[in-house]
């Protein structure tokens, strides 16, 4: 092959990769947190008897899920300013990923809501709870326990999507790796290390989610 591995140059820039990873995590956490709120509201709207809520929610999910995320990233960063919405790189990407994750999480939550037996709502009504109290005290907690396994894989895939921020020069992990690649020409080493950082982070994330799952599991 004629390529000898030499990680020295990459190790010298390792702190930049770590800083990149830190930013990746920050982007993911903020965007997914907002996405969860969007997803919850949209999921309840999708299950609403009122078409006035259901139709716009359905449109949002369809449009977002059928548009490549890279197109959304570029649209938000380059096209929205033309329409008068100006966001800096980081906020622009967070907004994009939040809206993107909202659509995927809405689908996850909706599936979870379908799996909540309707009898629980009726039992709630029978003891005098209002619809809103039933949502917060019964439907939501039961649904969240239903969806935790699916949520784990969605979170991981959304975290990996932060690498697309490199397309608009947000200095997250992938962007830093590409810079180090160009500066040092250690192509193979740079991308091996970057990949390992992604894998390690996703593994930790999955383990964390499994712990939460076990803690909250509905005992059967």
């Amino acid at each position, binding site marked *: 092959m004629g390529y000898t591995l030499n990680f020295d140059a990459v190790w010298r820039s390792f702190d930049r990769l770590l800083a990149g990873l830190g930013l990746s995590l920050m982007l993911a956490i903020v965007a997914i947190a907002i996405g969860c709120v969007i997803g919850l509201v949209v999921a309840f709207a999708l299950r609403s008897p009122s078409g006035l809520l259901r139709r716009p929610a359905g449109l949002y999910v369809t449009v977002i899920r059928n548009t490549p995320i890279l197109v959304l990233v570029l649209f938000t960063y380059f096209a929205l300013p033309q329409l008068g919405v100006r966001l800096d790189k980081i906020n622009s990407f967070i907004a994009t990923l939040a809206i993107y994750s909202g659509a995927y999480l809405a689908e996850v939550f909706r599936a979870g809501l379908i799996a909540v*037996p309707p*009898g*629980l709502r*009726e*039992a*709630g*009504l*029978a*003891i*005098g*709870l*209002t*619809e809103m*109290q039933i949502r917060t*005290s*019964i439907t939501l*907690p*039961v649904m969240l*326990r239903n969806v935790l396994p699916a949520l784990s894989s969605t979170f991981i895939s959304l975290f990996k999507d932060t690498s697309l921020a490199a397309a608009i020069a947000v200095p997250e992990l992938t962007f830093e790796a590409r810079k180090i690649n160009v500066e040092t020409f250690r192509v193979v080493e740079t991308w091996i290390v970057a990949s390992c950082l992604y894998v390690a982070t996703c593994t930790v994330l999955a383990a964390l989610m499994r712990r939460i799952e076990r803690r909250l599991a*509905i*005992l*059967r």
Partner: protein
Amino acid sequence: MTKLLEIRDLHKRYGATEVLKGVDCDMAKGDVVCVIGSSGSGKTTMLRCINMLEEFQGGTIRINDEEIGYETVGGMRRRKREREIARQRLLTGMAFQQFNLFPHLTALDNVTLGLIKVKKLSRAEARTIAERWLERVGLLARKDHYPGQLSGGQQQRVAIARAIAMNPLLMLFDEVTSALDPELVNEVLQVIKDLARDGMSMLIVTHEMRFAYEVANRVIFMNQGRIGEEGDPREMFVTPKTERLAEFLKTSTFR
């Protein structure tokens, strides 16, 4: 004396199919009324109208002289506000065929939820009441168990405690033993008999004929959305007046 429950000419449709075709029913305080009848005759629907889990299109339901679910304003019948209906649902308690316990809460928390969220009791007050009722149904020792860790009979007893802890005027039971293994039926029926002895007013849909015979001071036989026959079980079960009831009793088991 005002009646506890007064149902007049109750009509209920699902789309074009009428499932309640003019039902009347009266109960005084302390009455234990069992509702029997073949599957599909409208027993569940009647119960669910009483606590507004179902809407109904005609007739009135009154509890302690208060009209349930609907009001007439300027000659127009309209559904009451949700808050008002939620308050009226507290007049009754309901136990379901499928228990419907909240699976993410312990037995104790299943009972305290309504006391805290609806009755606005403190956690400690709610706990005291819940423990008292769990003790009454024989499950105080299981108060920290989740529904999934309890047998069907135990779950149903918790569900009954959850309903009664809210201190309803009238308890509604909808085939509460139908989903149970035969060996678990009696522990639940025993709880209901104890409540009857304490003077609890109850409207009980059941297929347990012997139980109905023993516990009810009146039996209602539902037939195709109407009341086919009603009276004292000691007379009805021995000398049914209608062919329908005679048929029905023949196909029922008295165990």
